[in-house]
């Protein structure tokens, strides 16, 4: 019998992580496309780092930054009464971090793909920066942004290393599907993991297939 609970937890974590990563990623992507500030390339490199950095290193930084003795960790605990690390919140943070670079890269490519003349036209027609962004820039970049959101969801559904470091592997609390699959295989209970393996594989391939479709059509236009 498969236990599907870790998969439900993964969906829950991925849902919140995708919302966070999308909001942050679009804002950072917009800033990267619109600024010539000297620190831009460095910020770009730092926000891309989670794609290549060892998960243990990332996890270590998160533990230092958000742990129970850190300023952020203490403040969080004072307000919400629970810690960030080794809770679901930690799992969401871990998944967000992993998917953030994907959203930033997709958002940046999508936003830069919009003809800048259209943005200038909106300004000369009386639209301020916010209205220009919401009515012209964002809708014209929508396809690429949706692709980024799908990638982010697929990525945060499967985070392993950072989640293990920051949230632990607590059954029912932070044991997501990726962690449960690892445990099952370690204990020679492959049959218990088979269902989750199939679902994760299916979702990943479906997401990447859709992303390719979305971005391919944009190139033709």
């Amino acid at each position, binding site marked *: 019998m498969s236990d599907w609970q870790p998969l439900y937890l993964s969906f829950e974590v991925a849902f919140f992580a995708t919302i966070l990563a999308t909001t942050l990623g679009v804002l950072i992507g917009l800033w990267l496309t619109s600024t010539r500030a000297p620190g831009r390339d460095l910020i770009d490199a730092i926000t891309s780092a989670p794609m290549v950095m060892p998960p243990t290193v990332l996890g270590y930084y998160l533990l230092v930054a958000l742990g129970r003795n850190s300023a952020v960790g203490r403040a969080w605990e004072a307000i919400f009464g629970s810690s960030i690390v080794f809770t679901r919140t930690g799992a969401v943070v871990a998944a967000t971090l992993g998917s953030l670079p994907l959203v930033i890269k997709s958002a940046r490519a999508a936003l830069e793909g919009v*003809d800048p*003349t*259209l943005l*200038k*036209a*909106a*300004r*000369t*027609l*009386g*639209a*301020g920066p916010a209205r220009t962004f919401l*009515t*012209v820039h964002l*809708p*014209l970049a929508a396809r690429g942004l949706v692709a980024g959101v799908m990638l982010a969801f697929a990525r945060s559904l499967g985070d392993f290393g950072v989640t293990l470091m920051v949230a632990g592997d607590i059954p029912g609390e932070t044991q997501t599907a990726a962690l449960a699959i690892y445990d099952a295989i370690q204990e020679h209970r492959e049959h218990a993991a088979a269902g989750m393996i199939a679902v994760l594989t299916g979702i990943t391939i479906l997401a990447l297939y859709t992303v390719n479709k979305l971005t391919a059509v944009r190139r033709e236009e």
Partner: protein
Amino acid sequence: MKSSAAPEAERTLEVDVRVERAHGHDFLLDVKFAAPPGVTILYGPSGSGKSTTLAAICGLITPKAGRIALGGEVWFDAARGIRCPVEKRGIAFVFQSLALFPHMTALGNVEYGLPRKMARAERRARAEEMLARMKVAHLASRRPGTFSGGEAQRVALARAFAPSPRLVLLDEPFSAMDRELRRDFIADVRGYIDEARVPLLHVTHHRNEARALADRVVLIEAGRIKAQGGVDEMLPASMDKLDDSLRIYVEE
């Protein structure tokens, strides 16, 4: 039109700016000229600073020093720290690519430029009226992707003129047009300018085009004004080899 009552000086564009290039060269744009109601051509070779001048006038770039004003309204004054944002200047900018919004209908494009404080129904009526005046009312609910070159041009002009701009800027919109389109475009633009009596500044490096449309010419070269004056004095007809589509306007 209400604006026709105002004396000419109150509707004259005055430009006196110095622009530093962010990238490369010691090139500095340093121009001073005035554009009264009617058509003024900013004439000069590619890279002479024509487009930069337009960008400074509409506020897409910020000059290092100087002043830009339309009549008594100061849009930019470096010394007094005045910088009116692009969207508040009331300028119609017609881009070379026309820059119609591909995700909006023709009607949506024209409505976009009308003031937010105008009632919805009023905006719609005004946009429909402008499309009808440009003879493209039948395109109202269609999107730009399906427009022919001439249709796109007319919708772009309807959008530019709908908010009753106080200044019209044209950035070489003719380069992508064939003769017929150019002739229609010139007639439509002339029609609006003659009626509204606002200044129009048109950038080009084509002599025939300049002669066909201009009341006045400002010669610009390497970021400096070389001369300015009436079109016949600045670009004498004797040196022309006029193309037929433009000839009729010169002979008028």
